[in-house]
C-alpha cells in the first residue's frame, strides 16, 4: 500500500513537471524577441522608479558615511563592538521567531478564510488586516494597556518583555500570511489531495505531502515579508520593549537621528542590506524548490464542518490575539469623561480637539488620507502588476532565470532597509533638478506606494506562476499575439488575486504612518498623523479623540477591504480549469 501511495506522489510530481516543461518552442523567433523586449520594457518602469527613489539615495548616504577620515576602516571598528554583534543577533532572532509564529498561527486561518464558507467570511477576512494598517503606536499602546501593571493581563508580567514584542508582531503580521497564502490556497486543485486521500493518506499526510508543497512558494513569500517587517520594526520594538531592546533598525535611528554618527549608521545600513540579501537568497531557493504548476480552477469551498474543529480553535485564538488590542481601543473610545459610555469622542472628531490642538478637523484629515491612499494603491497595483507579469515568467535560459531572480530581489529590498537611511539619503541626494522630487505633493502617496508594491508583487506572482502555461501555449498556437494571451488568459486568472491585493494595498496605504508622519505638511495631515498628534497630548479629550479616530480608521479599513474582496469574488473567473 505504501509504495502505491508513494507512486501516486511521484506520478503527480512527474505530471507537474511535464506541465512546466515546455515542448519545442512553437513561436517564430521574432515573436520571442518581441516578447522579451516587451517584458524588459515592462520591468523598466518599476526598476527606474526604485533606482531613483531608493537605490540612489541609499548609495549616497552610505557613501557619505564611508567618506569620512576612517573610510572603510570604520566597518571593522564597528563590527568589532560586541554591542553591535548582540544587536545583529537579536534582530535576526526576533524576526525569525516572529515569522515562525506568524506561519504557525496564520496557516489554519488561511485555510478557514479561503477554503471554507461561513457567514461573515468577508468581514472576518477584512478584520484580520486591521492591526496591520493601524499606526504602530496605537497598536503598541493598546498592547501596553492590556499588559501594564494594572491592566487586564498585568498579572502575566509580560510588560516590557520580548514576548510582548513577539505577540505584537504576530498580531500585526498574521494578516500578511493569511492573505498571501490564502489567495494561493483558494485556487489549488483539490483532485490531487482527493487522490491521495482515496489511496489512504490521512489528513496530516495529505497536508504534508500534497497541500504544503503546493503552497510552498506562497508560504516562503509570506515568511520573507514577515521577517523583513519584523527585522525593521521600530515603533513596536520601542513601545513594547520599553526602549530596552535594540535592533539594527532602532540603532540606525539612534545613530542617525540622535547622534548624527553617519559612519556607524552607514556600517549598520550595509549590515542590514547584507542581512536582507541573505534572507532573499534563501527565500528564492525555497521558492524554486517548491514551485510547480498548479492547475488553478474554481474549487469547492465547503461549509465549515466538524473536521475543521482544530483549525477553528486556532483561528479563534489567533483572532483573540489580533483583535484583543483593537477591541480594547474601541471600547475605550466609547468612554465619556464622566465615566459613562457614549459617542462624545466621535462628535469631537469634527472639531479640532481640546483647545483646537489640530490645524484641521479630523474629518478633513480623513479625506486627505483617502485621497492619498487611493493614489498610492493605484500606483502600487500598476507597478506590482507590471512586475508580477515579468516575475511570473519562467524563462528557459539560465540568464533569463538569473535576471528574473535579481529583479525579484531588487523589488523586495526596500522592505528590509531602514527608513531613516533612505529618508536621510533623500535629503542629500535628491535635492537638485531634474531629480528634485522634494517639491511634489505626490510624494506621500508615492512613498506609500513603494512600501506597498512589494506586498502586491508577492501576492500576485504566485497566481501568475500557477497559471498553467499550456493555456498560454494553446492560445498562442491558435494565433493569439502575446498581449491577447495575457489579456485572455493571465488577466482573468489573476483578477481575483489582484482585487485582494488591491484591497490590502489600499488599507495599508491608508494606515501608513512612517512616511507620512515625516512628510505630511502640517496643513494637510493624514488620519494616522492626526492620531499620532492627539496621542502625544495630555488630557482625556485628546486621548478619547485619538482612540475614536483610530477606531474610525479601523472600521474604514474593514469596509474597504471587505468591499474589494467581495468585488473580486463576484468577478470570479468562473470555471477556468486545467485540461
Amino acid at each position: 500500500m505504501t509504495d502505491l501511495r508513494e507512486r501516486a506522489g511521484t506520478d503527480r510530481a512527474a505530471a507537474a513537471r511535464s506541465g512546466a516543461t515546455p515542448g519545442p518552442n512553437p513561436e517564430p523567433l521574432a515573436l520571442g524577441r518581441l516578447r522579451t523586449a516587451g517584458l524588459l520594457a515592462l520591468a523598466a518602469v518599476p526598476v527606474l522608479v526604485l533606482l531613483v527613489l531608493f537605490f540612489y539615495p541609499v548609495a549616497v548616504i552610505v557613501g557619505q558615511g564611508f567618506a569620512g577620515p576612517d573610510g572603510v576602516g570604520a566597518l571593522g571598528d564597528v563590527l568589532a563592538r560586541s554591542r553591535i554583534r548582540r544587536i545583529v543577533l537579536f534582530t535576526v532572532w526576533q524576526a525569525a521567531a516572529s515569522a515562525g509564529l506568524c506561519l504557525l498561527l496564520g496557516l489554519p486561518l488561511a485555510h478557514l478564510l479561503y477554503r471554507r464558507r461561513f457567514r461573515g467570511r468577508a468581514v472576518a477576512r477584512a478584520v484580520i488586516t486591521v492591526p496591520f494598517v493601524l499606526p504602530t503606536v496605537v497598536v503598541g499602546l493598546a498592547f501596553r494597556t492590556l499588559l501594564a501593571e494594572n491592566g487586564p493581563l498585568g498579572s502575566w508580567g509580560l510588560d516590557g518583555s520580548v514576548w510582548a514584542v513577539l505577540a505584537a508582531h504576530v498580531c500585526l503580521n498574521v494578516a500578511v500570511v493569511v492573505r498571501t497564502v490564502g489567495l494561493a490556497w483558494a485556487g489549488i486543485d483539490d483532485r490531487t489531495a482527493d487522490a491521495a486521500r482515496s489511496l489512504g493518506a490521512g489528513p496530516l499526510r495529505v497536508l504534508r505531502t500534497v497541500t504544503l508543497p503546493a503552497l510552498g512558494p506562497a508560504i516562503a513569500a509570506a515568511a520573507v515579508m514577515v521577517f523583513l517587517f519584523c527585522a525593521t520594526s521600530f515603533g513596536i520594538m520601542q513601545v513594547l520593549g520599553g526602549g530596552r531592546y535594540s535592533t539594527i533598525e532602532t540603532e540606525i535611528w539612534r545613530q542617525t537621528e540622535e547622534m548624527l554618527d553617519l559612519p556607524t549608521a552607514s556600517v549598520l545600513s550595509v549590515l542590514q542590506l547584507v542581512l536582507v540579501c541573505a534572507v532573499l537568497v534563501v527565500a528564492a531557493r525555497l521558492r524554486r524548490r517548491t514551485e510547480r504548476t498548479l492547475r488553478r480552477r474554481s474549487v469547492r469551498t465547503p461549509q465549515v464542518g466538524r473536521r475543521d474543529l482544530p483549525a477553528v480553535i486556532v483561528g479563534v485564538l489567533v483572532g483573540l490575539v489580533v483583535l484583543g488590542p483593537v477591541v480594547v481601543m474601541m471600547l475605550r473610545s466609547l468612554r465619556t469623561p464622566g465615566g459613562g459610555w457614549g459617542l462624545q469622542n466621535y462628535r469631537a472628531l469634527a472639531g479640532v480637539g481640546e483647545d483646537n490642538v489640530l490645524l484641521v478637523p479630523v474629518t478633513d484629515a480623513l479625506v486627505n488620507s483617502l485621497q492619498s491612499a487611493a493614489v498610492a494603491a493605484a500606483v502600487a497595483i500598476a507597478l506590482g502588476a507590471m512586475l508580477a507579469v515579468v516575475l511570473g515568467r519562467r524563462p528557459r535560459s539560465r540568464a533569463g532565470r538569473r535576471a528574473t531572480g535579481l529583479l525579484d530581489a531588487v523589488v523586495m529590498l526596500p522592505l528590509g532597509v531602514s527608513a531613516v537611511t533612505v529618508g536621510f539619503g533623500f535629503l542629500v541626494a535628491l535635492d537638485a533638478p531634474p531629480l528634485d522630487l522634494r517639491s511634489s505633493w505626490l510624494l506621500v502617496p508615492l512613498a506609500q506606494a513603494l512600501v506597498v508594491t512589494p506586498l502586491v508583487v508577492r501576492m500576485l506572482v504566485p497566481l501568475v506562476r500557477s497559471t498553467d502555461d499550456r493555456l498560454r501555449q494553446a492560445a498562442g498556437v491558435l494565433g493569439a499575439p502575446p498581449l491577447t494571451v495575457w489579456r485572455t488568459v493571465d488577466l482573468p486568472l489573476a483578477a481575483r488575486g489582484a482585487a485582494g491585493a488591491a484591497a490590502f494595498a489600499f488599507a495599508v496605504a491608508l494606515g501608513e504612518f512612517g512616511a507620512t508622519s515625516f512628510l505630511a505638511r502640517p496643513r494637510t495631515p493624514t488620519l494616522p498623523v492626526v492620531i499620532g498628534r492627539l496621542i502625544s497630548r495630555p488630557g482625556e479629550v485628546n486621548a478619547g479623540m485619538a482612540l475614536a479616530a483610530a477606531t474610525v480608521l479601523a472600521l474604514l479599513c474593514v469596509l474597504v477591504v471587505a468591499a474589494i474582496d467581495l468585488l473580486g469574488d463576484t468577478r470570479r473567473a468562473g470555471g477556468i480549469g486545467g485540461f
Partner: protein
Amino acid sequence: MRTALFAGRRPVLAAALAGILLLATGCGSGSEPAGSTGTSTDTAVSSSAAGSGSSGTPGTEVATGEVVLITHDSFNVDEQVLADFEKSSGLTVTLLAQGDAGAVTNKLVLTKDNPLGDAVFGIDNTFASRALEAGVLDPYTSPEAGNGSDEHGLGAGDPDHRLTAVDYGDVCVNVDHTWFTDKGLAEPTTYEQLADPAYKDLLVVESPATSSPGLAFLLGTVAHFGADGWQDYWTSLKANGVKVTSGWEDAYGVDFSGSSGKGARPLVVSYASSPPYEVPADAAAGTPAPTGALLDTCFRQVEYAGVLTGAKNPAGARKVIDFLLSQEFQTSLPEQMYVYPVDTAVDLPASWTEYAPPATDPATVDPAEIATNREDWVQTWSDLVEG
C-alpha cells in the same frame, strides 16, 4: 518637544521619503493637496551671501513670495493666526515637519549646502550647540527680541545671535493628587524623596535614549546632583522600582494613574503644563486639579528659531522670525503647543495661571556641556538603569 514614536514597522521608503521635504511652490492651504508648480524654484538662486549676517532693517525690507518654515513635528499654529500673518506680510508660508528636535537639527546639518527651507523653528537647548557649530544659521536679531525672548537666549554661547528663543517648557514630575489623597500618603516634592522607600514602585520615567522629556529629566538630575553625583541617585531610583518606558505617550497615557489611561503609578515625568488638561471640562473655577507638577524637579527646555544659511528667501525668513515673536503668535502658543511664551507681556490662559505655573527655579545645563556629554551620559544611564 515630545518624543516621536513614529516610524512604522513598514519600513523604508515610507519613512524613507520621510526625510523628504517638499520645497513645494505655491502650496495651497487647507485640505487639498497643493498642486505644486514643479521644480522651478531652483532657478535663479539668489541666496544672500551666506553668513553676511545682514540683519536687514526690519520693517523697511519688503519680503514677498513663498517662505518655507522647517519645524519639528509637534509644531502647531492656529490657522487663523497664520492666515493673518500671510495677509499682512504678503508671504505664503509652507510648513514642513521634519521629526523631533534632534532630527530637525541633524537634517539641517546634513543639507547645509542646499538647505531645506528658509527658516527653522524647533531646535531646542539640547541641540542648539550642534546647530551653531555646524554653521547652518545666519545671524538675525529681531526687533521683537526685547519682549523677553533674549532672557531665554544663549547669551555668550551665541554671540552673533543666530538663534532666537520663541518659547520654553518645563519638564517636571507630575503627581496624581487624587491617588495620594486616597492612600493618605504625603506627596514627595524633591528629587531625593523620589528615591525614598516610602514611594517604592510609584515613579515612571521615559528613557533618555529615545525620548526628549526623558533626556530633560536626566539632565535635571545631572544639574541637581552634579556630574559626579547623578549616577548614585539613579542607582537608588532603580532600587526604588522606577519604571522606564520608551516615550511620553505610554508613560503618561498607560502607566500614569492620573491620566485617562488610569495606570498603576501616580508619579510620571511630564510637563509643568500637563495638569490643566486633566481638569474636567465642567469643573467650576477654583476646583483643585486632580494632578499637579512638582516644581522642584523641573528642567527647562527652550525652543529656538533661526534664519537658515543659504535661504532662498532670507527676507521672508526674517519676517517669519518676527512673526514667531509677535504678540498674536505668542498668545496662541500655550494652547497650540503646550509651552510658555517668551513674551513677558502675554497673559497665560486662565487655566494655566491656576493649574500650570512655570517653575521658578528650574534646573539648567549649559548647552555646550550637553552637546559634549550627551552620548556619555545617556550610555552611562543605560548601563546603570537598564543594564
